[in-house]
């Protein structure tokens, strides 16, 4: 009943090693302090005949310097140790499989690149890096998979990402870890890791909702994006061809890379990152398009090639 959590991702294994090192270190310090306190308490209890020679000032200074230096060194070592791990797992591989996750009180929705959707569960293939683009429709939630040792807040008005490479097939808990109201503790889900073939079959069998890219192409005209963004349009709006991955200079002087999260935010929060040289006239689509439609648009925008001709 008191079992360690399953370890089902690449980073979970190295997390466990790091955690173990810290537990051993902490155990050692606790033992050291406890031993000092207990041994001194017994040896120097009132009335004991221990030799209580005076601790000379110089000695105590040296002792102090020594343990201050030792703790400072220890702290820096652990900082390096932990941060190195963090940085190693910070950036997702470029070929990671993408899934869009939508959180709302109190459920999890996922949309795959193929357009397949699921509710309260997320199927992913074994051994393949998967990156989640996450949005919330209402309050802050947090996508927590103990078996992956990963957690990421899902914040309204912003796209957060999280990536992992599953190393074990099976089904694992998904919890909402940021308190989000009445149903917080029932905002659960299941992460199902399947081997590559089984996953492909599963995806195949999902009721086809058409490919995301196709839906996005249609929507780009239907939702009125084209009326401004079409290169032939009279409205002064950026040309979106080849936008994906390009550095975009913003009106406030920052330069950001147009990744999927940026594209998504540009549609849902156009006032947030205004492109340099343009007026902030783009309407806010957050109430007009649902999560899948946005995912479709983003998918389609990413396929647009730069028109160099």
């Amino acid at each position: 009943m008191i079992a360690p959590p399953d370890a089902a991702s690449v980073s979970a294994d190295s997390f466990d090693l790091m955690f173990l090192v810290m537990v051993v270190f902490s155990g050692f310090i606790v033992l050291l302090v406890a031993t000092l306190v207990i041994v001194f308490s017994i040896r120097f209890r009132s009335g004991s005949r221990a030799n209580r020679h005076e601790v000379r000032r110089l000695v105590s200074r040296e002792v102090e310097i020594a343990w201050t230096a030792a703790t400072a060194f220890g702290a820096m070592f652990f900082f390096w140790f932990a941060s190195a791990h963090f940085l190693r797992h910070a950036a997702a591989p470029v070929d990671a499989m993408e899934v869009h996750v939508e959180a709302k009180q109190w459920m999890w929705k996922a949309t795959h690149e193929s357009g397949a959707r699921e509710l309260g569960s997320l199927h992913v293939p074994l051994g393949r890096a998967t990156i989640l683009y996450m949005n919330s429709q209402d309050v802050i939630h947090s996508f927590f998979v103990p078996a992956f040792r990963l957690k990421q807040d899902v914040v309204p008005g912003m796209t957060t990402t999280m990536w992992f490479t599953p190393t074990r097939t099976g089904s694992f808990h998904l919890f909402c870890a940021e308190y989000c109201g009445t149903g917080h503790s029932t905002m659960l889900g299941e992460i199902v890791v399947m081997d590559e073939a089984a996953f492909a079959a599963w995806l195949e069998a999902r009721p086809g909702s058409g490919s995301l890219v196709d839906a996005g192409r249609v929507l780009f005209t239907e939702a009125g994006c084209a009326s401004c963004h079409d290169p032939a349009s009279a409205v002064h709006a950026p040309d979106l061809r080849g936008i994906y991955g390009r550095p975009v200079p913003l009106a406030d002087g920052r330069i950001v890379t147009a990744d999927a999260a940026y594209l998504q935010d540009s549609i849902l929060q156009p006032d947030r990152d205004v492109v340099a040289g343009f007026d902030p006239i783009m309407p806010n689509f957050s109430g007009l398009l649902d999560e899948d439609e946005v995912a479709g648009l983003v998918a389609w925008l990413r396929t647009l090639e730069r028109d160099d001709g």
Partner: protein
Amino acid sequence: MTLEAEAGRGRPGQTLPRSYLGAGHSVRSWLLTTDHKRIALLYLGTITVFFLIGGSAATLMRLELVTPPGELVSADTYNRLFTLHGVIMVWFFLVPAVPATLGNFVLPLAIGARDVAFPRLNLLSWYLTIAGGVLVLASLLLGGVDTGWTFYTPYSSLYSNSYVTLAAMGVFVNGFGSIATGINFLVTIHTQRTRGLTWMRLPLFVWSLYAVSIVMVLATPALAVALLMVVVERLFDLGLFDPARGGDPILFQHIFWFYSHPAVYIMILPGFGVISEVLTCFARRRIFGYEAMVFAMLAIAIFGFFVWGHHMFVSGQSYYANLIFSFLSFAIAVPSAIKVFNWSGTLYGGHITFEASMLYALGFIGLFTLGGLTGLFVASVPIDVHVTDTYFIVAHFHYIMVGGMVTAFFAGLHFWWPKITGRLYSESFARLAALLMFVGFNFTFFPQFILGWMGMPRRYWSYPDDFQVLNVASSLGAVILAAAYLLPPVYLGLSLWRGKPAGDNPWDATGLEWTTSSPPPRENFAVLPVVDTEPYAYHADRVEPHRRGDASHRAVSQSSDPGDDA
């Protein structure tokens, strides 16, 4: 101190002034008092009531968590319980417990002053606390608040339909009480020290109050701003935290933690002070590394302002922010570690006795060490990513707040009780309570570390079956802990009419507060004491410590100041 200090008790044959307790018995004499000692007692009564309310909420929660499905109370009730527990325990118990209660009583006595610098402001602080408390209790009676004590937006500002505005206003008003107390203490320490009490002769408890006052004055306004923004957004629908209108939900977290991380130190620094007083007294030993202890406290108070982002590693803030906050959080571990080692070093070569206060103080060292070490886990970004918002965090901060601060509060309460009331309590009952608390505490909270590591999120009303065994263990521990907390009111209460008279200095301790009568007169001292030695002069410098009563510190001072009339 010199024997002149002894003169504070009045000379033989001279009638002592009445004790502060005897100076008026009417309700009015209490409610309009400007005596720091009476105000301390008003605070003591207040925080006891709040502790009972907050503790009852915790007990109900632990009962609820015995079984995986939520059966005892509804999810909404559970959410209100943990919010109530957090709001009350943080702002109406922990924050005022040591500074406003013990600090209020001891500070002027410990620096040889007749009162704090602004006695009326001091009373106002208490009324602000009461006003804030009444608002919070009103929100409770109307139906409660369900946002968690952290009031995260946009849940608190746009989604919760509970009494958020009322509770936030309560905390807001109470905050001004903290600020006033902080200013009062700072000015008091700067201007009211008695002759000869230089900065480097201040007892560490006074230093800890100094450090904590700085934090209260500088950090609490940030809390006020954060809460005010939530209130304003709820009342006037401004959209400050609403992304659809250009607001930013994360902004709240930045402001909130800019207060609330330093607030963690509001809730532990004074404990450091108390423990230093108690350990030296019952080890009959000078504090090991006085200067280092002072600077460590100041360093913690200042560094504490630069680590708030470690509460937000998974909030979506940038990698660089995460690394910087992680680095600073590791750095702040160093002064904390210095304190633990110096306390252990203080025991070396002492003549240690194990009165109840001492048992609390020794327990504190252990629990604080464990709480602090698990702080290293959560300072590491990748580990925090897994354990944040799980029971690991719950256990971590309870080790600091309850294992640390509540234990220190009890150490201090038992230490100064004879001074406050003039009575001795039953030492054996007090020791029993101290042991029970230690056992009950670990039994309750250690399993939560494991639960968090296994992945159980916090603030869960129901949970998967895998987590049940440890939850049951934790709930059993909570029963022991609750029983232990009920003991002190009983034997301390009994001591009021059955207790032996304490005498001026039952522990033979060195602080100035012990040189006046117990309970002290309204003016604290008949003649203000003069100080000419370092603090904790339990033995002459570079001389072997001696047992309590063998040859007391007085003998030491006497040799340096022989011309007194004692």
